[in-house]
């Protein structure tokens, strides 16, 4: 078991590397990411949907030049889907195909005892890595190259799976009864994400570093939009981001997140929108909001305040956005 290669020497380096991979990290994200690498502890990120939790894992994989192995969690996920499984069909097929060979091996044996011994000697053939179907967790552990293991939406998996994960995450080894214990070649960088649809167990939380990613500030979000959608004019980008921020203040069923801002920005570019007036808002708002009731509500609010929303910077609401 080797130590994970430390690619970063300071949080600043993390930040720069992430920046190069189109991920704008703030001090907090960079520092905690760095700590996670230094301490070899999994990083648990929580926050609203679409603020870039999964993206962070992808960016860090790209930045460290590691392979990204992703395990998407869902209800009913179990070890056979997450860790490993024997390929029974293949095993059966091989026994069929190798029947002649087996006959040959057994044919010369004088009694049953000897035949059994010979079979036992060949047992390893069928329980070898050849027939082991590696699922994401095992793949991350056995990988020759250092990896980033992304366990996405852990809150969707069952509690029992969480408990099982604890074992893997604390020792980075897996025991396969037929093969023995398999230890990690490189300890992977583990990122877990959760949307907090249910409480995770204390035990799991205890083993992780915790990072809460919330909605970004106007400036940060503007930077993200400018980076990811460079074709949008700066003025329009600013307006768009401001509208999104004002919508987040409203009590909606699903507040628009960064990913939706980006979708919207892309939509504005492809529609070749020159300025944000009521008409364009009306037609493109559905990119931003995904519930009919939210849409109606947002339309009402935007219509009411569209003038001061876009022009009057001294509006008390406008000032509220900047914090």
């Amino acid at each position: 078991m080797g130590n994970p290669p430390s690619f970063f020497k300071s949080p600043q380096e993390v930040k720069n590397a992430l920046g190069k991979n189109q991920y704008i990290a703030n001090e907090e994200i960079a520092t905690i990411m760095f700590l996670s690498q230094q301490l070899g502890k999994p990083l648990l990120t929580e926050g609203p949907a679409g603020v870039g939790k999964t993206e962070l894992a992808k960016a860090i994989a790209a930045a460290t030049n590691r392979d990204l192995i992703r395990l998407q969690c869902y209800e009913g996920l179990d070890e056979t889907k997450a860790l490993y499984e024997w390929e029974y069909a293949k095993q059966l097929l091989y026994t069929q195909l190798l029947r002649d060979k087996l006959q040959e091996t057994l044919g010369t044996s004088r009694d049953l005892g000897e035949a059994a011994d010979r079979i036992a000697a060949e047992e390893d053939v069928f329980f070898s890595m050849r027939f082991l179907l590696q699922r994401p967790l095992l793949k991350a552990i056995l990988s020759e190259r250092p990896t980033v293991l992304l366990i996405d939406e852990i809150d969707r998996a069952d509690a029992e799976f969480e408990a099982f994960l604890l074992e893997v995450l604390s020792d980075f080894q897996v025991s396969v009864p037929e093969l023995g214990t398999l230890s990690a070649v490189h300890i992977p960088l583990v990122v877990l994400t959760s949307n907090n649809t249910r409480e995770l167990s204390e035990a799991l939380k205890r083993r992780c570093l915790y990072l809460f990613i919330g909605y970004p500030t106007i400036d940060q979000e503007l930077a993200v939009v400018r980076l990811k959608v460079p074709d949008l004019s700066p003025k329009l980008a600013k307006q768009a981001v401001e509208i999104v921020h004002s919508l987040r203040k409203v009590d909606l069923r699903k507040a628009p997140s960064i990913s939706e801002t980006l979708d919207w920005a892309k939509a504005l570019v492809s529609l070749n929108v020159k300025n944000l007036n009521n008409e364009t808002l009306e037609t493109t708002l559905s990119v931003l909001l995904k519930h009919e009731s939210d849409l109606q509500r947002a339309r009402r609010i935007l219509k009411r305040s569209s003038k001061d929303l876009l022009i009057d910077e001294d509006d008390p609401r406008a000032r509220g956005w900047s914090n």
Partner: protein
Amino acid sequence: MEERIVRFISALRAGGVRVSLAESADAMLAIDQMGIKNRDAFRLCLKSTLIKNASDMPIFDELFPLFFGTSTIPPFLNISNDLTPDEARSIAEALRQFKEQLRDMLERLLKGDQLQPGELDQLSEMIGLNQTNDFRLQELMAQRMEKALKFREVQEAIQELMDLLAEMGINRERIDQMTKLMRANQQSLREQIRQYTSNRIAENMSESRPEEGLNGLFERPFNALSDKDLDRLRKEVQRLASSLRTRIALRQKKAKSGQLDAKATIRANLKHGSVPIDIRHKDRTLKPRLIIFCDISTSMRPCSELMLSLIYSMQDQINKTHAFAFIDHLEFITPDLNNKDIRGAVATVLRRMPPGHYNTDLGLSLENFFDQFLDKLDNRSTLIVVGDGRNNYNDPRLDIFGNLSHRSRRTVWLNPEPPTLWGSGDSDMLRYAPYCDSILQVSNLAELTTAVDRLLS
């Protein structure tokens, strides 16, 4: 430094954050890595290792500056130094007009003396700050301290003093200047008091013992609980619900029936040369499904908050939960409980259905359910009714209840009243009873624990 961190952690614990030993060790490790020179990095080290719940962040943000802050009190200005002898004499004369305590305060403001540690300690003793270890009381304590220092009276006294000085013939401009400076000094004192109280409370928190056990709480009836008890009960209920989950999981493993699980069967029978001796079944079908009716009418109000907390926790653990609340009609509350923290969720429900003078009507509520939500109930569901069965002489609709009970796997009634009261007055409990598989009395946590345990057996 380490000692300071340890104190900080115990203050966090007193603030209700659960910090384990392993986590505090992690914090130390993280700090070893990052050093303590950069205050921001240091803060992030502690934050990422100690705080694992978004809801605990505010208390962290509040406590951190108190323990590792560079608290600076705004400067006090000495006015008396640059007074002309004439002015000094006038002031001294004018001051004689005031009572002793006010005079002291005015002089303090003129000289720009801040409160000495000894004085502060004395004050804190006086107003009971030494026993306070709750942050919510910080503002109150600061106000008490200001009152003890007669802040409001001093405010008026400053004006009076200036009027006197004006009479004595000191020019207006000078007086305005002095007023301003004295006010500034008073503001600085206020700031000093705020900082002292919060520091003091933080210290108290770090020294307070971890919460005493739940002894007694278990047996105390729900309607005789204080806010703090409720808080702890809520935590206990949450723990109860999560221990439930593991128990459910165990039961699921034991109770396997239903569809054949081909993969598992092949795997299990490899040792028999693929002769299927040991048949494996899928266990998905046995996942618990709950339909909960919770009475939150006036008669149930004392315990409805706790019951809703329990429902919230159950829903958190068991995916297929449909929760309803009723007073005179039925409301589907599962969406309210989703995606919110427990306190907010319970408050939302209670706000949406305020107690009033309308009639409790389980009969009508059952009818609502029958008309709108019947598809949620099937033979895998457990039907749970939380209520006292006091129906205000309305039609209990036993026919519907019987029907629902017949359709569900089990019907359980949780009633806070003792059996002797069932059937008395407007209670329809005895009439509902024949349709229930079990009726459990839950008037305190001990009973609730057993009830929950029985619920999933």
